[in-house]
């Protein structure tokens, strides 16, 4: 089994974008996408959206397309900020969400991804991301 302590880490957000947005993104870099990137956290639902500014994007990997949406991993530069938008109660009503998993579950959009140092697919990409040793 791989040793977690010897692995590199980067941060990414995982989500879904419309196919037409995915086509304009390209793979590996920010793809010249000039606007803020908005990812749906859950496939098929705009309930929760993650927004990343284009100059905070270090690279993008694209996954499968299903029903007009493409899965993407957006790798972030150091100190990138991520904004989460939730469709929900108007903020001026001063309501506090109850984290009842039987109704909904808010999950953090930012995840830490470890990459094995001997992984042949990622070294060049990791260099671009100026990875920190874990």
């Amino acid at each position: 089994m791989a040793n977690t302590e010897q692995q590199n880490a980067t941060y990414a957000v995982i989500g879904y974008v419309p196919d037409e947005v995915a086509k304009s993104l390209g793979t590996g870099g920010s793809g010249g996408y000039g606007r803020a990137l908005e990812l749906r956290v859950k496939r098929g639902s705009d309930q929760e959206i993650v927004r990343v500014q284009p100059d905070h994007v270090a690279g993008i990997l694209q996954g499968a397309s299903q029903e007009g949406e493409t899965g993407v991993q957006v790798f972030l530069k150091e100190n990138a900020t991520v904004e989460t938008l939730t469709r929900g109660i108007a903020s001026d009503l001063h309501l506090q969400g109850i984290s009842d998993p039987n109704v909904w579950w808010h999950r953090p959009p930012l995840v830490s991804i470890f990459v094995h140092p001997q992984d042949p697919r990622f070294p060049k990409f990791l260099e671009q991301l100026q990875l920190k040793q874990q």
Partner: protein
Amino acid sequence: MRVLLTQPPLSTLPEVCPPVGLCTLAAWLIHKGHEVSLLDLDLAVKGLPSGQEIYRDLLADEVRRFAPQVVGVTSMFNNSLQAERLIRTVKDCDDSIITVGGGSHFGALTVPSLQRIPRLDHAIEGEGEEAFAQLLDAVATGAGVADIPRLCHRVDGEPRQNPSRGLMDLAEIPPIWPLVDGCVDIGRYARTIPAGAGRRAIYIEAGRGCPFVCTFCATAPFWERKYRVKPVAALLAEIRFLHEQYGYDGFMLVHDLLTVDRDYLNELSEAVWESRLPVEWMANHRTDIDLRGLLPKMKAAGCWAMFFGIESASPRLQKTIRKGLKQEGIVSTITGLADLGIASTCSFVIGFPDETPEELSATVALGADLKLLGAGMVQFHRLRTWPPAPLSRALLPARFDLDSLRLEYPFLDVLDADAAAIAADPEFFAGYFAPATTAGTFAQMAQVEIFFTHAVHMVPLTVALMGRLAGGSLIPAFYGVLSRLGGVSRQEMEADPGSPWPAWSALRPRLESWVALHPTLEDWQRRLILGAMDYEERRLRFVNSDGVERDGMDAGGDDWAAFVSTVDIALAFDRLRGGGALTPDLVQDWAVVFTRQGHGAFGVYTTGADHLPELSQRPSLMAASSVQ
């Protein structure tokens, strides 16, 4: 050789997946040059009103049509009585046909199978592919069978078990689905999935073998505890074929414990991701296997769920059953998965021989806690032991369990003759005999299993509060309720899969009785539990209604409804999740607001009770707002 492989009816569920083990054997035999027909009687009887009467006729028809030289019958523990009858049917059609038994029941009890079933010629212990192929070669050439590994055969009428010569390399098995596409009607299986199902799911084999040594587990010793996996390329080829040809998009990867090898999971995740196939998958996992860092990649590659055997909250039992999980790891793993949006199913085993009611109380409470932490499903299962589980050799005192038989039998009606036949052979049908336990009587344990599986699913906050406040007396107090009100019935619990109300109407009076009868709860503690129960009942009503349910609510609008709860629900969730103390300040009025947010999504919020009049000015509460 002409080989007919068959599976008896297996379940009453309308949705059917191809039998993975039998399809793998079929592919292997086709790969070896044999002509194979596969008759899955579980699929064949679906939709037929008289399946229990005609499954043998369906096999007889196929035997006459295909004229096999050898018939292989697989059996699980719940359908081996039917498998036994199928063997008789084959011989009645043509006594010269060679019959071979395998699968998780016959394959674990080869000698008893030959002793019990005179017309069964051979049984194969454990992994069947190599032995079956060698048996066919021996039949074709007239060679003896004494050297065929794993084969159990008769010598002078007495069963003789040949030794094993190791396990096969799974890389030798070609991608099975393209190979069996001719003899298995995969499209017919796919058509059993309801239109509009969220996921078109199928079981496929990723590998075999778990290296752990849990005493109650039959599967790990069946595969001799050797961890093996199919090559990622082969597995992906199967996924691609089933997706592109039959539209499957959810793959339940069959493996005792796939996540043992982190590098394999990494490779699999990357392969699925790179394939661009719009598919998802799930696998078995343990909470003490560290997948930190890899989980996001798995999620991105379509991992939608993980299954866990948690078994018990008791550190003592974790040790004696040789599971060895620690509670901190259980909690952090389930929380971590929920944070990533990966669902989890947590399974517990209850009724170990020396388990105490206090330990059982802790286990039920842990199940409710995990549900609050984001576990998608929590299940409680009474201990039953099947060979070759180490515990099955302990010959524990046990009692025939008709309730389990009814639950797992392949047909809705358990014929009296069938029940009698099974009850008369406790050694062969050990899986239908529940061991005695110090945790409760036979009837009490059956009630704990069914009652708390449903209660944790429907009202986890209530059960978690009961567990936290009552501690070790959770289950003894429940036994007091049973003696007053009697138990719930499976018919009540499963009367309407589309509605919670039949089950809830059986659960609620017993939960209320538990609160009323508990000998040591303080008044505020009773009010806390009842307030939580009231909240959860209203939540059930709101999310199960077609529109915005306002009956019994204090305020509402086009997309919302609110009531004044006697409990600070938000704080109760936070205290339970964070391990904070439950104190009387939780019992105070707070408004709870349910919202319907479209796409089947709901929200729930809290605010001061005096805020409701202001809210009532708003027909709609929905708007976009930034939360981070």
